[in-house]
């Protein structure tokens, strides 16, 4: 276990270092940030001042060393556009993104498991076939286009739900959240459903496969023979055994939800990290892009690590090992 931990940490360190080099140098070559920072009417002295202030007159590798020094001190550079530390901007928006991803995760479970169970128990029924066909469609639908259609139907045509922003937020332990106010909940509904759609399909298929497989098993037959009620068989015996793969996959997919929130946040103008990233890419706001990528890579390494460790804890048949050893 300790060897696994150490090797994983070293590997993670290497990845972050490689990432920061690639991204920093790459982003520096793309465009000239001076054009964004300085208004076109500014005179030469003003231009020179901005270039000096942001260290843009130094060679790229020196800028990178400066950047590394900043990283070591928890300072990932200042945003050109907002004039604030990049890390602060990202951390400010992180709760909104995490909240959206969590809401989507809950939706995937609440909608996906009952549908999958229903279809798995009666695989021949017409409704079950419709559910399974729908889940294939859910895999193929492009997320962003579904988002647009949701806005069109529920916000423009029917006018039931708001389509942009986060709504009123309540503050809990210093973190603001939309999930505790009615207005906020109304705002979170559409984007969360949009983000959840793919995961709902996934959960439906997993639950369906699990239920079909489990209902052939001896313990279910035995429970039936014992004369247990259908509700108890499904709710206790079947569900428990289906949950293991579902929980594992959902854990793995949480990171995916965070990444895909980039799309959903842009459509619904949700003020999270993903929207910040897209805005920053479009405005060539380098420090924010670099900081976002480093933060998200760290988050991913952490999530992957936790899932691996949890997996081995939940299922003793899985041994932690490294392919290289």
């Amino acid at each position, binding site marked *: 276990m300790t060897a696994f931990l150490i090797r994983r940490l070293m590997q993670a360190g290497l990845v972050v270092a490689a990432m920061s080099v690639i*991204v920093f140098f790459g982003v520096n070559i793309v465009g000239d940030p001076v054009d964004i920072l300085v208004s076109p009417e500014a005179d030469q002295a003003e231009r020179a001042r901005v270039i000096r202030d942001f260290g843009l007159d130094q060679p790229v590798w020196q800028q990178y060393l400066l950047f590394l020094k900043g990283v070591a001190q928890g300072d990932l550079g200042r945003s050109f556009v907002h004039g604030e530390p990049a890390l602060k901007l990202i951390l400010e928006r992180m709760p909104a993104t995490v909240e959206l991803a969590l809401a989507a995760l809950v939706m995937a479970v609440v909608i996906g498991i009952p549908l999958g169970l229903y279809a798995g128990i009666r695989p021949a029924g017409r409704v079950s076939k419709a559910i399974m066909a729908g889940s294939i469609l859910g895999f193929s*639908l492009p997320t962003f286009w579904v988002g647009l259609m949701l*806005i069109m139907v529920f916000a423009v045509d029917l006018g039931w739900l708001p389509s942009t922003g986060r709504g009123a937020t309540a503050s809990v332990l210093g973190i603001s959240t939309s999930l505790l106010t009615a207005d906020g909940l109304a705002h979170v509904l559409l984007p969360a459903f949009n983000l959840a759609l793919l995961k709902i399909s996934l959960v439906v298929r997993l639950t369906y496969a699990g239920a079909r497989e489990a209902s052939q098993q001896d313990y279910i037959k035995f429970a039936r023979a014992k004369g247990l009620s259908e509700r108890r068989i499904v709710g206790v015996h079947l569900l428990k055994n289906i949950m293991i793969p579902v929980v594992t996959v959902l854990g793995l997919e949480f990171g995916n939800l965070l990444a895909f929130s980039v799309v959903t946040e842009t*459509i619904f103008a949700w003020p999270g990290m993903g929207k910040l990233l*897209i805005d920053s890419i479009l405005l060539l706001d380098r420090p924010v892009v670099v900081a976002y990528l480093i933060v998200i890579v760290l988050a991913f390494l952490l999530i992957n690590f936790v899932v691996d460790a949890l997996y081995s804890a939940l299922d003793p048949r899985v041994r932690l090992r490294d392919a*290289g050893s």
Partner: protein
Amino acid sequence: MTEVSARDVAGVRPLAHTLTQNGEVGGEGSDPVPIETPLRLFLAEFLESRAAAVALAVLALLVAVAVAAPWVTPQNPYDLGSLDILDSRQAPGAKASAGFTMILGSDGLGRDLYSAIVYGLRISLLVGIMSGVLAMLIGMSTGLLAAYAGGRTEAVVMRVVDLQLSFPAILVALMLVAVLGKGVEKIVLALVAVQWAYYARTVRASALVERRKEYVEAARGLALSPARIMLRHILPNCMPPLIVVGTVQTAHAIALEATLSFLGVGMPPTEPSLGVLIANGFEYMLSGRYWISFFPGIALLVTIVSINLVGDRLREVLNPRLRR
């Protein structure tokens, strides 16, 4: 046993039947029995699923329309001279000032939406197929190399593959696009970089299995060069899973390109793929002009669904374990 009966239903007889049948047919001269080449057998089995047959037909139609774009559209959306600003944002079915009917309406620039979709489909398919082929070539060579070389080479290649697959494709693609900037070749590069790992893993997995088989041993016994054994003997036997991964990944590539373009970091406005068209319609959505985003989205959806259905059926037919 079940396999035989399933094939009989489709009018395709198993091989043992065919031999005797052919012998008799030679004598009778009438009632021509179709020659059962592996390809025909494969096609017949593929078409057993009606959904897959329809999907294949739709896909062929889409490709044909995209290739023949200039001949099947009333307007060239790139020819700015033929556009009329008075035609912009017309509802489906409106008459263009040039005389033809805009069956799907027009967008904010006065482009006939149907023509724009056909040309956009052309770009989307081209980008998807180009990146799919490139990623397959790269992934295939690295995967084969890893399987054949083994040892340290294999460990390094597979570690890189694992690492890349642990990050979601959209994130890696966004990262690369942020670094590389806009442009067709940059998008293709980003898509290839995202997808090669899937091919590499697939090829390595099946090459490792094939390597231990007797025909490879026989080829080694004949002292054939390793390159020849890899490319002429092992690779052809790794093709079935590779084809399946290829179709599914091409659909992914098309969806990913559309997503990036929608976010404004993909194809440039001068090369409007379906994603760009949908993004253009976004601003008109809130005023109720749904068609500018709706129809390109339907085209994208139909493309992706039909590729996925074909890929699904290929998996069923090519994987002997899933045979009934």
